[in-house]
């Protein structure tokens, strides 16, 4: 399994899940995928279909309306799969924590493996998080 995990660590294809974000983290994710940061040198590629994904980049606080769809996307993706929560919203709920339509426990909707705090986090922080994920897989 160690050999396979090393292959997986060098080829993480990410799929962007917008779970009711304010769009700020989404813009930073798009920045991450520009030639300036060039994540293809780490084997990271943005894919358009969740069937091709290894990592779900989840941005936004998950509200009641979008929660079933997020759950469905998680179930549609082939495993092994990692979920990375981008921004303060998946991490702590941000200022929407006590809102009327925010799901009470995000972990019940989708199991999040890694959190990137920041509102929004810088692309460097996201690269560091992915590098940590690769370190976990390589260990």
């Amino acid at each position, binding site marked *: 399994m160690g050999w*396979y995990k090393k*292959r*997986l660590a*060098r*080829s993480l294809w990410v799929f962007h899940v917008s779970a009711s974000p304010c769009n700020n983290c989404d813009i930073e994710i798009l920045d991450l995928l520009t*030639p300036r940061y*060039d994540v*293809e*040198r780490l*084997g990271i590629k943005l*894919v*358009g*279909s969740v*069937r*091709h994904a*290894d990592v779900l980049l989840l941005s936004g606080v998950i509200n009641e309306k979008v929660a079933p769809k997020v759950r469905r996307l998680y179930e*549609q*993706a*082939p*495993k*092994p799969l990692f979920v990375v929560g981008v921004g303060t919203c998946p991490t702590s709920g941000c200022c929407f924590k006590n809102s009327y339509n925010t799901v009470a426990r995000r972990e019940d909707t989708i199991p999040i493996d890694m959190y990137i705090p920041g509102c929004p986090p810088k692309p460097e922080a996201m690269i560091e998080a992915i590098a940590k994920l690769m370190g976990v897989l390589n260990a």
Partner: protein
Amino acid sequence: MSGLTFVYLLVFPGFLFTAVLGLLVGWLDRKVSARFQFRVGPPLFQNFNDFFKLLGKETVLVKDGLRWLFVAAPLAAFGMIVLVSAMVGCALFFRSGYGGDVIVVMYLLMVYSIMVILGGSSTGNVYGSLGAGREIKLLLADELAFILVCLVPIVKSGYRLRLEELLASQAGAGAFIGSVSGVIAFLVGLLCIQAKMTLPPFHIPEAETEVVEGPLMEYGGPLLAFWKLSHFMMYVLYPFLLILLFFGGFRLEGWGILWAVLKYLLIVVLMIIIKNTNPRVRIDQAVGFFWKIAAPLAFAAVILAVMGV
């Protein structure tokens, strides 16, 4: 079927050689594309990592759709590509036929496109069907020009169809690229290959931004790995076919090896440059281009070849 046939099919000109070379050339494509965009680009074994990673992932079958076709289409398409690469490779490296001629090659390459269409429409996914429909239109567009391009070497070699006879004819009278009709047919053939491999500017069926990889959208895990591997193997197969048809094949001794590598790299680099400098065309533009410009040009090349120019 002797033991050697299996070796041809599975090891040297066939599966193993084409797959390894194809994945490496796929890296070259990604690296050169990255340099075009002033990026660093992926490491050398990136495509191998992608392939083995996909092989180890879960296979998700579709709920609404034809499941056996969903599984069979990528495997059959992969089989077609292995077969054609063995045929073309045997003719190039051993000057032996492997029982195929140009018509069989054209037929099997068309079957690959039909497998993409069947696989895309078996998913029951709207984007998959859209992509399959676009693939049909692209096939209708480029097939006529491709057949006419293949006709030029046949005419010039004195109406011979077998691959090794085409090579023998070029060994005697010089490569077909050395004539006017050969140059025209080669250039049209290069664009047909771009369309057959669904590379930009003709990546209409797999447009990521509109139909999210189209026919491949519902494929994940090992089945996607086979689609991707077939695609990378075409990076070897199609340039080899063009070398066979127009550049007089390989002479694998002395300086001939260097020439062989240069011929191959020339075609691949031309493909990468066309890929990186052109935006995607619309369906009507692609059909219009192939039927109004490329096919008449190829037809003119055939007439020139008949006249002996």
